[in-house]
């Protein structure tokens, strides 16, 4: 419990530092007044707007005003949409979350068995195919994979729609396109596109973990006990290779949410990534700042969850970080 509280305090501090960095960074680029104001406006109108927005005040004052507002949940209004920036982002978040979630599920559900197979049967044709595929997976550029997926499965075979998010269904109060067939069809290609790189990584981690663990004495002892092979592999081996995979999945998930930009753009997926790209292009400061802070918070939460999971998987890891 103490550990969780300490981690939360660290997280708050981290968020604070990030808010400062983000604010400074955004302060340094461009002048939002140029976009906001009618080019025909007089100098007097211009000065009035600057004063109204508080842009004439010194940097640190602006920062504290900003921080005070953020603490009250106010990230300012989008210059472009003239609506609260945070609301704009949270509106898009489910689309990105469901996509990232689907991608991670694909990566883990396929990656762990394939990697373990490659680790248990090295040198076989199947294992070499898996490993060659994983090299392709993370060396072929993501955008090219996306275009190829669209060309083959949408254009040539016509199995999946080319772009967009399909119908949204509701299940237990959660609205997501995971719950309709049409939604799943729309999601398949972008999710696969997002998953491929991570799938390749999961395969590699699962394989190297398997190779390391299968040579351990406790696996040999498990055999000496006369356990059946499935139990040895699914309980004794799997539990021991999970830690690096959980780390990767935690980090990947954050990365997928934050940087699904390319995939979302290509498949016209109405998620946060697409919003942020548009906002940067239009110098929509409040949206960019709010987005970055939301991402920081997501990363912090994921990190915390990963650490908590460690202690569930490996009893030797105590939450205070010491090994017993």
């Amino acid at each position: 419990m103490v550990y969780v509280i300490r981690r939360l305090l660290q997280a708050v501090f981290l968020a604070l530092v990030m808010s400062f960095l983000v604010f400074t960074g955004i302060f340094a680029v461009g002048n939002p007044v140029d976009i906001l104001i009618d080019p025909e406006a007089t100098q007097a109108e211009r000065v009035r707007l600057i004063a109204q927005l508080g842009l004439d005040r010194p940097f640190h004052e602006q920062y504290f005003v900003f921080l005070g507002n953020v603490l009250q949940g106010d990230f300012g209004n989008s210059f472009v949409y003239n609506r609260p920036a945070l609301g704009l982002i949270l509106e898009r978040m489910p689309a990105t979350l469901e996509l990232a979630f689907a991608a991670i599920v694909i990566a883990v559900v396929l990656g762990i068995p394939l990697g373990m197979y490659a680790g248990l049967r090295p040198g076989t044709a199947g294992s070499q195919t898996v490993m060659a595929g994983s090299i392709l997976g993370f060396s072929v550029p993501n955008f090219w994979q996306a275009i190829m997926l669209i060309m083959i499965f949408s254009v040539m075979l016509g199995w999946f729609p080319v772009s967009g998010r399909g119908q949204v269904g509701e299940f237990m109060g959660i609205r997501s396109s995971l719950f309709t067939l049409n939604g799943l069809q729309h999601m398949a290609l972008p999710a696969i596109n997002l998953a491929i790189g991570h799938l390749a990584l999961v395969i590699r981690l699962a394989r190297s973990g398997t190779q390391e663990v299968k040579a351990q004495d406790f696996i040999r002892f498990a055999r000496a006990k006369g356990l059946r092979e499935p139990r040895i592999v699914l309980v004794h081996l799997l539990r021991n290779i999970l830690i690096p995979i959980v780390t990767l999945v935690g980090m990947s998930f954050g990365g997928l949410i934050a940087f699904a930009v390319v995939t979302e753009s290509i498949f016209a997926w109405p998620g946060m990534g697409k919003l942020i790209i548009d906002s940067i292009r239009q110098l929509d400061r409040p949206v960019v700042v709010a987005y970055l802070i939301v991402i920081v918070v997501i990363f912090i939460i994921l990190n915390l969850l990963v650490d908590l999971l460690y202690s569930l998987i490996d009893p030797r890891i105590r939450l205070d970080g010491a090994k017993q």
Partner: protein
Amino acid sequence: MSLLEINNLQTHFFTSGGVVKAVDGVSYHVDRGEVLAVVGESGSGKSVTGLSVMGLIDAPGRVVGGSIRFDGREIANLPGHAMRQLRGARIAMIFQDPMMTLNPVLRVDTQMVETIHAHREMSKSAAWALCRDTLGRVGIPAPDERMRAFPHQFSGGMRQRVAIAIALLNKPDLIIADEPTTALDVTIQAQILHLMQGLVEEDGTGLVWITHDLSVVAGFADRVAVMYAGEIVEQATTDSLIEAPQHPYSRGLIGSVPSRNRRGARLAQIPGGAPPALNRPEGCRFAPRCAYRMAGCDAPQSLRNNVRCWRADELPAFDEVPA
């Protein structure tokens, strides 16, 4: 009929550098309630022999010849599922490093109960109770609590007791113990030895005790097989081996036990090291290190009267050799 009879066992490893004949024609037998010590230095093939009996030789290794009869039944190269039914049920094995033999992420009760369920139907609670009682039997205090602990919460000696308890769970006829005390403190070693001695006596279990430490053997084993470079060089009852070793290698081993040496005198040793497994001498494998070597030693040696040395009868009595 012996419980375990190994005859001319050959276990080879097919490596890129050549065929390593880790076990090259080994024969020994163990009866119920008997303790056989297999002694030899690292690489002599003593562990590989044990693993061959368990059917636990991994690629690139393979049992290529000879027979392993367990309770009258040939088990060398038995199909996997049949071997699995024997392993942990009728033949159990304990390994050297107790820090490594228990799965670090599973609780002790999980690792024990699964051993029972791999071999027979039993309700979860009955299996749990049996495991707890077995933990108590190997001298683990407060077994009820310790069942729920993880391996890292045990000391090395206690972990080896857990491993022994696991080996005992299905009341095996034979236990193969591969240097189970080597990684432990001397005092703990003595406790484990004492424990094992009591347990095999109680249950009438046959025990193969693999070790490189002769001092462990005395007073514990009934018979000793000395292995060198993949072969057995001498087999005898423990008393006669310790008092009157025949083979020059056994003599060397016993001569190098420090307690035998006079205080202040230089410690006795066997010069040189074991030959590399891929490049063993053509004739007697011990000849390059042997103090009694002569021209006739270039021929391969066979076991005669349980000693693999053609000159064994001519050598001076062991007691007369200056320490």
